[in-house]
């Protein structure tokens, strides 16, 4: 199986609500996985109101801005190996080059290619919604902000 490296895999977002968030606000927690090399995995995150989400860019995966981890490939699975001593290995199934499945979070990861004209990724809230909706929002409703 092949992991694509000309972009990143965006994990289905988690909806955060209620916890000191007004009831009419939707906050999204979002992980993006960039398989930098054959052993380096960089995870960038955002926790933000849906209207405040910003695009992931190549810079999002700078060492200081993301969580560096390592991984190994085993068959059609990625074995993620966190560097932190309190972290535990977990696996990501490779469904195909564009679709992964995180067995730890039970969420899908979908591939987004870097734009050809720059390193900037054009992902935004619209793309998240277009990509993943409908996703489980719990008791919350997505609103256009």
């Amino acid at each position, binding site marked *: 199986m092949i992991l694509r490296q000309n972009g990143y895999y965006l994990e289905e977002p*988690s909806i*955060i609500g*209620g*916890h*000191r*968030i*007004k009831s009419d606000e939707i*906050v999204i*927690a*979002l*992980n993006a*996985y960039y398989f930098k090399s054959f052993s380096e995995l960089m*995870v*960038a*995150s*955002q*926790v*933000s*109101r849906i209207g*405040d989400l910003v695009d992931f860019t190549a810079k999002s995966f700078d060492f*200081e*801005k*993301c*969580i560096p*981890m390592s991984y190994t490939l085993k068959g059609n699975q990625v074995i*993620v190996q*966190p*560097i*932190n001593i*309190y*972290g*535990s*290995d*977990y696996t990501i199934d490779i469904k195909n080059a564009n679709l992964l499945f995180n067995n*730890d*979070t039970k969420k899908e990861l979908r591939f987004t290619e870097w734009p050809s004209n720059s390193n900037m990724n054009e992902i935004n809230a619209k793309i998240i919604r277009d990509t993943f909706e409908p996703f489980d929002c719990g008791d919350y409703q997505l609103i256009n902000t």
Partner: protein
Amino acid sequence: MRKIIYPLLIIVLFVGCDRDKELDPLDQSEIKQLEIHNQFFEYDGTNREVLWAIDLFRNQPNSNDLTKALSEKLGFPQWNHSIIGIKKSVKKNYEASESSEEVQSEIGEQEILIPMVSEEGGSVNALLLYRRFSNGEETFRIADRSVYDNLTEAQLMQRQSLLVASYLLKAEKEINAVESITIGGLIFRDAPDSNYGDVEPWDYGLMCTKKWVINANTGDVIAEYWVDCVPEVVVRPNDPLSPNSPVTYYDGVDGGGYPDTNYNDPIYYDNDFYRTGGGGGHTDYTGGLEDYLDSPKDDLGHNPGSEMIQSGPSGDAKDVLASFMTLTASELIRYPDTQEVAYSLSEAASDPSLTAEELHVLAYMGREVYLTAQSVNFKIDDLHPVHQMEITRNAAFIDFYPEVKKQINESRWPLSTQEWEALWGIFKPLIGELLIEAVPGGGLTLAFKDLIEGANKMDAVAITAGIVGIVTEFFPPGKVFKTVWRTGRVVRKGFKFVKYSRKYLDEIGLALEKGLKADVDGSIIRISKNGDEVARVTNNVLTFKYTGFGGDIVTVPNKTTTVIGKWENQIENIWNAGLAKQGSNKGGMNILGDLPNGTVDEKWEFNRAWLDDAIFRKDIIRLTADPVQTSNILYLNPQNLNFNNFSQVADYMTSFGTGSPLFDNLGFFGKEVHTLISSGYQYNSLTKQFFKP
């Protein structure tokens, strides 16, 4: 009469001039009185005797008061069911039939019995008795069923009682189609063989119906008697008129007599009544109309008690003052509107803890209430609202003062201005529980704040005045006197709140405002929601019932307990109960419940500042969620972190700063834990508290 006409005139003018304008409560009350008046005299018939009686009643000087009092206590007269009797002492006339003059003198007497019923289908509560004597004098009396209900069997077996019972039965049969009635344990009904053609007292020239008196317990017929008699048509021996003659005459009455008129035994007279069994006696158990009025029939100016109250206490000794207060109470208790203040005055008079000086103040307040009420015949509604408010203040003062004095030492009064405000916050929803209307919003008025400031420098008198001020602010002026008594329970409850949970007056007020209940159970204040206890205050320590992480939250006196944890179903429940404040709250809880709008980062900035304040104050930091659980502290966990104890959490948290992406992955609670650890706090896993060594 003027007293009646003026309000009516005002109503007519008011309605006539501005129909669109909503009537104020006083006008509505007068309109209600008009409705009562009209219903009281409702009559479809044309009987001129009845119409005469109605007219006579209607034109009495105190007709308005009478109709109100009687309709409230006995119901409305059923003029259409009047029992009309022409008084003629048949027996007497029969014996004295030779004297036509004497016979004629009796003819003019008449009695009309009008059943009184509270509501359609209801029992006959009384008979309104109209009587016209032969000398032209007229009177109204009341045969009150409840009076007869309370008579002994011997009293009930007296002549008048039996007659009243028979007419109550007659009225009930006609109005409610019943066959018998029970009065005072005796059942009254028509005897099975009762009819005008089968009567026993033939000797007296009467035709009557026979009644049975039955013991309600045994079912035994204990007496029978005859009433509702009509004169027998007597055809004298050797009379040229045959028994079948179309011309009849009544015994003792010359020529025709009383065609088609029933002759009813009058209730007052002791002749024309025949019976077997039963005791003797001729007691009149009917009452005068004035007995049903709230005011006394005597002229108050000649009431010795009134004169003594007018002249004030005869000395300043405690027993003299107490005796004066008792006298005032005994006068006030005679009138429905002033009974409550009478009780309060009486209790104060017998309170050994009150000094002579205090009794002096209360005695004169009671006197003032009496004299003011007397000026309107003790009908407080008739007082001008301003005067009503004045005597309400006096009356409430008399009611509250002994309790306030008792509480001052126990509860360490006086209160601070803030505590007064908090007490106001408690009174509002509590009084709302009593369904008292027109509870104003907002806090204390500036003028009242001034009063509080004064009260706190003074004594029980000023404090009582303060409480009276709070309470009387709740009510519309026109209703204040009658409704203020309903606040007594609330005020006493408020006192206990002050005594046992003084530090939490604000919280209790908020909780009540949010629909929770607060009850006093001994020295414990229980706060409950839908019947379940959510918190209690014991000895001024608040314990919030919390079944989650760490169990109940017990606050620490003189320290603020800042509560952090997960919001959903944890802290939000405490916050929504209104039992916490946001910010410093010595002895109570501090919760961040109100965050301004903004981005997640902006919210955290606010959260951080709030926590920094708690750190600066060296608050107790109590957790309601387990910080070892990563789901509690992390929003995102791409590293699949797991901790076994808090030491590992602390170790992890100290491995990165606030600029790290790892910090961004923390939830608000995780960020708070990170901040506390960074600020030198340590965690006690037993107490679930952060503390600063």
